[in-house]
């Protein structure tokens, strides 16, 4: 059974106090906490078999290599990738997207071509494309967002058209919370012969994602948002697409043979992993995947719908709070960005004094904030270990803060 109270016992940090109060960690969309199993995997690695991978004949090198490659298999299984050849370890979602931008996109975009993202992208799924399209003489187009915070798909067939070569879409917005219909967009992209990429930074950690069913060409996500350490992330790509791509970073491990004047490339997926990989954190990611699989991704999603509903309802009942994005928990990931009369920063500081960690600012989604006429919002984001009690604490904290700042007449 899925019991956040039990799950919490696996996360040492959750018993810490902040400013004298028990930590209420609601900044999971920024980064997640780590269960002791993951921490222990790191300790084990460094205390028992730490060694460079792929290159050695000695026992520890083999042990490290085996565990590293086993982690790759676990990741492949999690996202239902047909083989490990398409699972490339990178640092984070941002690097994964840049890899595609600097290889596939640079190779395939030309003057007059178009590429499509949405208006709700994280900077990491926008800024890399600004450069590639500009350099190629291609046009970057946007799937528009309705005032309710969902994609306006009435223009799907015009925005994605025969000139479109690549479509890249955030699966769950880290600001609006919106879950985008990636299957439908993928179908349209493939219909016009375009490749389809998904920014899964907020989806892979929180719900079942099946690349085979979705048929996406690329999927990017970060380990640190799914109980693993920072410093490890994944680019999944169809091996057939990878085969046509020039390598990105070059150097040790990704080569087959090297002469002074040229080099040949190693097999997939190593071809896209240059230099000593972050094998320790990759192995820890494998353990995080084990942990999530044991919970069951369906259950994780279900928990977030429940806690999300509870939060949306409680926050919605507060007159002073305006929630951004879709109003129904089923249509969104487990997070809620909102505004009040008090500046988010001041709110954040007040709540922090009560041990409640929320995020404030633009959450790396400035253009969508601008479009909504907002400079900053406050955001609470949830994970498997968050409880309804914590939602109550948040709401109590918010009320206290609004009263405090109200008494100070802080509404400018």
């Amino acid at each position, binding site marked *: 059974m899925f019991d956040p109270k039990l799950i919490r016992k696996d996360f040492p940090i959750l018993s810490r106090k902040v*400013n*004298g*109060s028990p930590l209420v960690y609601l900044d999971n969309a920024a980064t997640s906490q780590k269960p002791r199993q993951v921490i222990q995997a790191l300790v084990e690695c460094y205390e028992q078999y730490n060694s460079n991978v792929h290159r050695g004949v000695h026992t520890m090198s083999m042990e490290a290599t085996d565990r590293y490659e086993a982690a790759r298999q676990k990741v492949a299984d999690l996202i239902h990738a047909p083989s490990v050849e398409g699972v490339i370890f990178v640092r984070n979602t941002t690097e994964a997207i840049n890899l595609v931008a600097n290889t596939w996109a640079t190779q395939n975009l030309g003057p007059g071509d178009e590429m499509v993202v949405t208006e709700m992208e994280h900077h990491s799924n926008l800024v890399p494309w600004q450069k590639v399209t500009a350099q190629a003489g291609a046009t970057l187009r946007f799937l528009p967002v309705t005032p309710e915070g969902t994609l306006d798909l009435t223009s799907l067939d015009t925005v994605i058209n025969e000139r479109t070569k690549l479509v890249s879409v955030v699966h769950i917005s880290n600001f609006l919370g919106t879950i985008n219909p990636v299957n439908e967009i993928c179908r349209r992209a493939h219909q016009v012969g375009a490749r389809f990429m998904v920014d899964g930074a907020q989806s892979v950690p929180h719900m079942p994602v099946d690349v085979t069913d979705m048929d996406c060409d690329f999927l990017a996500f970060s380990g640190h948002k799914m109980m693993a350490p920072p410093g490890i992330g994944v680019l999944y790509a169809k091996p057939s697409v990878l085969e046509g791509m020039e390598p990105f970073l070059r150097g040790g491990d990704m080569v087959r043979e090297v002469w002074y004047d040229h080099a040949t490339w190693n097999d997939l997926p190593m071809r896209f992993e240059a230099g000593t990989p972050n094998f320790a954190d990759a192995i820890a990611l494998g353990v995080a995947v084990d942990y999530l699989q044991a919970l069951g991704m369906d259950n994780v999603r279900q928990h977030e719908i429940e806690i999300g509903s509870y939060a949306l309802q409680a926050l919605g009942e507060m007159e002073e709070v305006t929630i951004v994005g879709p109003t129904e928990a089923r249509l969104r990931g487990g997070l809620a960005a909102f505004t009040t009369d008090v*500046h*988010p*920063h*001041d709110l954040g*500081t*007040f709540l922090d*004094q*009560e*041990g409640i960690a929320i995020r*404030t*600012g*633009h959450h790396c989604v*400035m253009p969508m*904030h601008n479009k909504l006429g907002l*400079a*900053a919002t406050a955001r609470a984001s949830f994970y498997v270990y968050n409880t309804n009690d914590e939602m109550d604490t948040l709401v109590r*904290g918010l009320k*206290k803060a609004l*009263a*405090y*700042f109200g*008494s*100070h*007449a*802080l*509404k*400018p």
Partner: protein
Amino acid sequence: MAIQPPGGTAGGINDLYQDILVEHYKRPRHHQLLPDPELKSEGFNPFCGDRVVFTARLDGAGRISGVGFTGQGCAISQASASMMTDVLQGLTLDEVRGVVGRFRAMMQGKVLSEQEKEALKDLVVLEGVKQFPVRIKCALLAWSALQDALAEYSKSRNKLETST
């Protein structure tokens, strides 16, 4: 209803949001940009989106004859900007640099003399921000803009001098 300051540092939050600060936030002084300013610059915090645009004019003697700012952001960043504009009036640029130095020193924990404090006027209430290190950046936003404006101005003056 009497609001208790939240736990942790005794009275912490009240040290931060002192009445004078809130007053400046609610009714910022010099809250409009000047036309044809000699000094102009924008401060922006990319991690939170807070912004301060600062302008000032100089008289024939090289003293600040007028200041103005606009911006958006938290109480700390906007109040700090407002208080800053309050102390600049009539100063030479060297005196302005002195104020900047004293303010930054205070934010870094230096204990100021009574005389130094006097010159900072309302700004002394920002000493409370020190307990909230993550907010120091907010308090310094307008000051970074001011320093950029000073640097820009010196640069353009130097250029003018070498070209004449």
